């Protein structure tokens, strides 16, 4: 009799334990259902960000005292499991009106459905995009660490206007080159793009695409120190002219202590260019480049300095030197005020005050130091 009671008790205990377990599972499944929408549902709309950038200019070399430099609309989303899309429209003032420029508009193919893997981490970018020549050339105006592009970048890559002279439309293939060790990485970016000359050498449109390559070697020097070195090449062949060649190198060092959070950092960088000749003159290789630094004193303030030099590629044949000093103040990553002073050996001696704001789902680099 005792045995029967014991067995019945045991049975009741196990059934109870089992029912508690199944109840727990059911509760967990219901919780999963309730919490399911947390997984980054953007309702299929593109992530949208608006950037605004204005500045005040005073002194010699200023066109107007107040300038709304640009309003930029950044839209990005996944297109399907294999591709992402990016469209960036810039609204820039032209006299009393505004012109809309497609700053970027491209699709990134991460993998083709017919392939199991992307060899060497290959990604393809097709469309209209900032060309990877050096580092500053790939940065949008609102993201620059200084108020404007260095004079050497403008001379070699931009020409007289704000727009790039060499084409932005083309196809890019970026992949890793295997290297030993885990503290460094080597990436190569190869591009075929529409030609169009350089900043100082604008040439007629041609059916022959230009080639652009950028190789980047990144090295974690130590836990809080890293170094990046890039090499760039641009080649354009136009019938009846010498092969247009532009070579560049970019170097950036960064120190950012972990224990200070967002309070301290130091960046030192530079880019150097050499091209073959003004107006295609054989045997003439003008040089240019700039160096800069940017020290973060605390969470808000970043003073910086820049020196730029180029020779014989602008309107003047003599060398151009310019020096700039900047002080950046962030209220948060979404609002930035910047004061700057610029001097050059021709006609600049001006003070600039810039304001930059960001609205919406901003990409992940809130401060320039995180780029």
């Amino acid at each position, binding site marked *: 009799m005792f045995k029967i009671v014991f067995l019945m008790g045991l049975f009741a205990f196990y059934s109870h334990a089992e029912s508690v377990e199944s109840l727990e599972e059911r509760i*967990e499944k219901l*919780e*999963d259902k*309730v*919490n*399911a929408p*947390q*997984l*980054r549902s953007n309702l299929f709309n593109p992530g949208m960000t608006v950037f605004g950038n204005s500045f005040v200019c005073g002194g010699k070399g200023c066109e107007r005292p107040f300038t709304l430099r640009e309003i930029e609309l950044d839209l990005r989303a*996944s297109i399907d*499991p*294999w591709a*992402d899309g990016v469209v960036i429209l810039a609204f820039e003032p032209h006299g009393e009106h505004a012109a809309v420029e497609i700053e970027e508009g491209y699709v*990134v193919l*991460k*993998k083709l459905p017919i392939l199991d*893997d*992307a060899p*060497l*981490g*290959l*990604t393809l970018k097709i469309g209209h995009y900032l060309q990877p020549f050096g580092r500053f050339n790939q940065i949008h105006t609102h993201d620059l660490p200084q108020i404007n592009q260095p004079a050497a970048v403008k001379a070699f890559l931009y020409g007289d206007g704000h727009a790039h002279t060499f084409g932005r439309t083309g196809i890019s293939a*970026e*992949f*890793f080159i295997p290297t030993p060790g*885990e*503290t*460094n*990485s080597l*990436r190569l970016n190869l591009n075929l793009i529409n030609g169009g000359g350089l900043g100082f050498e604008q040439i007629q449109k041609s059916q022959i695409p230009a080639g652009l390559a950028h190789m*980047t070697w*990144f090295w*974690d020097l130590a*836990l809080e120190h*890293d170094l*990046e070195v890039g090499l760039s090449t641009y080649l354009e062949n136009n019938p009846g002219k010498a092969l247009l060649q532009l070579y560049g190198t970019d170097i950036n060092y*960064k120190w*950012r202590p*972990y*224990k*200070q*959070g*967002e*309070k301290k950092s130091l960046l030192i960088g530079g880019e150097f260019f050499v091209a073959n000749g003004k107006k295609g003159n054989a045997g003439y290789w003008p040089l240019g480049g700039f160096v800069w630094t940017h020290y973060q004193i605390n*969470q808000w303030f970043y003073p910086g300095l820049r020196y730029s030099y180029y020779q014989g590629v602008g309107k003047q044949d003599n060398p151009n030197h310019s020096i700039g000093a900047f002080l950046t103040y962030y209220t*948060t990553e*979404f609002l930035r005020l910047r004061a700057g002073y610029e001097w050059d050996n021709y006609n600049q001696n001006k003070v600039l005050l810039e304001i930059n704001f960001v*609205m919406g789902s901003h*990409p*992940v*680099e*809130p*401060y320039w*130091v*995180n*780029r």
Partner: protein
Amino acid sequence: MKKLVLLFLLSQVLWALPIKVVTTLPVLKNITEEIGGSRVSVQSLAEPSQDAHFVQPKPTFMKKVREADLFIEVGLELELWGQKVIDSSGNPKVQIGQPGRVFASAGVPTIEIPTVLSRQLGDVHPYGNPHIWLDPVLVKKMAKNIAAGLTAVDYEGKAIYEKNLKAFQNKIDQALVVWEKKAKSISNKKLVTYHRSWSYFANRFGFEVLGQIEVKPGIPPTPKHRDEIILLMKEAGVKTILAELFYDRTPSEYVSKRTDAKIVQVPIDVGAIPEAKDYFSLITYILEKLS
């Protein structure tokens, strides 16, 4: 025949290669190693002493992720830099929707979900407070998500992952008894924290968080806010300021001097100090420092 033997041996070597896992945070690495055991090789991208919100997506991270079979992140928009690393890695296995991508927070009930989404509220997280790993009960669910992710990319190891998951969850249950006893022995449980990272921890162990030294999430204190916090602490009798190791001590020291409160600066992640070598010692260390 020799070739066949060689091929067989080679296949056995390849068969035995561990699953390559990359996690955003060291705490996820630790949990993954507990569950995966010798079947996994895990790397964390962030350093234990870093603020998880602001990690620089470096090219060396992309290189690591390129080789990964599985990528594990907390989610809840904590590691916004993680997506950039994945995009630039060119690894299709770890994209959203693929078996190689795990959000450890999936199905975890979150708190402090903002009713209004505006930058006026500071750096708010739209899906709620993401510091879920500071509640050991929620870590059991995170571990389950990780085990499911490991099984998805390595079905052969399913039985091992299930066994290790059960063992890990039991270990949490056992430790919880000790931790709760320790927490109960702390007399004054009123806290002011630097950042709003400690809500789950406080809820689990019965602490009362009365305010933050930050004026809003991610926004350092203004003088007016500091004075308000000092007044609040004096009125409510708060004697402890709890902050993560990576935050600047200056604002906490200012408040501490005027309230006689002690500053407890502790790691929030595994491995930041030798005493917090795994998840269990991390929680034990935090409770020890608060007692």
